[in-house]
């Protein structure tokens, strides 16, 4: 399938009422290894993902894909919402929307639930699952769509270290299979483990976009250096 990447954002701006939520997002995202988005609370990480994913429409600038990305992207939200049906049905739901026959979508959903380690609870109502389980259902749900690009907004924020590692393993496997991962996190250890390149946001701007090693070794802006110094050591 022809790639929808690279994704090019040029001077993307988003104002909601009088609040400027994004000042200037200029960024290119190419196919390949995971891109990790970091920055302080309120720097615009979630907003960047929402803009890329098409959930927010920029009030200025342009967002350009190589091809029409319709149906080729998926997102895992920080607080995943679950429908009042089984975990399996939640994972299959996106495929149902696309008109896939029941047996096929159930088979795919079951496979994805297996791969996130939830085969045992496939038939349980999704809303009564624990936070960590719901996070994995959300990942399986996005994965079922076989997206070319997957946005994840702090997917491990509510997970314990073991679950966090498990999720990282899954993301690495997905990346190896060719899915572009774009993920926000406050966990710099995770950024190092998973990321190939880092996007650093500060007050609604992309201040840096650099390979992981270089970003951590010698951040190019005082803001990034201060951010790295302020975060807890890993």
């Amino acid at each position, binding site marked *: 399938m022809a790639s929808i990447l690279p994704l090019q954002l040029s001077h993307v701006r988003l104002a909601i009422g009088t609040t400027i939520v994004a000042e200037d997002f200029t960024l290119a995202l190419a196919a390949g290894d995971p891109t990790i988005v970091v920055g302080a609370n309120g720097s615009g990480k979630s907003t960047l993902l*929402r803009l890329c994913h098409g959930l927010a429409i920029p009030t200025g600038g342009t967002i350009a894909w190589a091809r029409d990305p319709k149906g080729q992207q*998926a997102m895992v939200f920080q607080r995943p*919402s679950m429908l009042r049906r089984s975990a399996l049905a939640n994972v299959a*739901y996106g495929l149902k929307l696309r008109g896939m026959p029941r047996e096929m979508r159930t088979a795919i959903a079951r496979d994805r639930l297996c791969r996130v380690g939830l085969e045992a609870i496939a038939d349980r109502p999704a809303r009564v699952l624990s936070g960590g389980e719901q996070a994995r259902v959300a990942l399986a749900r996005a994965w079922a769509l076989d997206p070319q690009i997957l946005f994840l907004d702090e997917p491990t924020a509510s997970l314990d270290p073991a679950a966090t590692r498990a999720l990282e393993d899954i993301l690495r496997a997905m990346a190896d299979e060719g899915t572009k991962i774009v993920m926000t996190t406050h966990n710099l250890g995770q950024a190092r483990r998973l990321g190939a390149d880092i996007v650093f946001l500060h007050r609604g701007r992309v201040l840096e976009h650099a390979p992981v090693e270089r970003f951590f070794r010698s951040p190019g802006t005082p803001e990034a250096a201060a951010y790295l110094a302020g975060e807890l050591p890993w």
Partner: protein
Amino acid sequence: MAIFGDAFATAFSLLFGGDRQLFGIVALSLQVSLAATLIAAAIGLPIGAALALARFPGRQTIVVILNALMGLPPVVVGLVVYLLLSRAGPLGSLGLLFTPGAMVVAQTVLIAPILAALARQTLEDAWAEHCDQLRSLGASLMQSAATLLWDTRYALVTVVLAGFGRAAAEVGAVIIVGGNIAGVTRTMTTAIALETSKGDLGLALALGIVLLSVVLAVNAAASWLKSMSVRRYG
């Protein structure tokens, strides 16, 4: 106090003696209110869904009007429906006045706004919770509406039951458009009003007990549904 005791005695002998007149009145009441509830649900739920999900100019005004219509006085509804259905009225040719059909129309007008307004609130909350997720998965507005109607089905059944309770218990509208004709348009509420004014408290009280039981059963069903859905689906 003696009057009360006598009335109760008569009431129980009527209730458990299988009184035909009583049975006819109860059956007609339930039929009329059930029909009105089904029609009002068919009209009110889609309107509630449209108001919850769609954004269009004038929406806020409609919501305010709808909420106000929840408190429509039954006698006013009865009067307006009477004028519409009377021989000289715009719908006079239907010949519905003083038939059960007229009572169905009046109760439908009375409770459709209630169902629409309560459904809108329920669906708007659900939409707020699932909006991003559904859009991310590529659901159209129609698909989202269908999904949320299904997802909130237990809450909506409770809403519909509330509408039924209101329809079954009102007297002002049906007495005007039905005329309280014995054996034709005499419902529990109109019969209670009539028998009380005639001094036949036994029959009035018997009907009152049946009506109360119906309302109680409906409320019990509603709360059972709610707790069952919370237990099963979270």
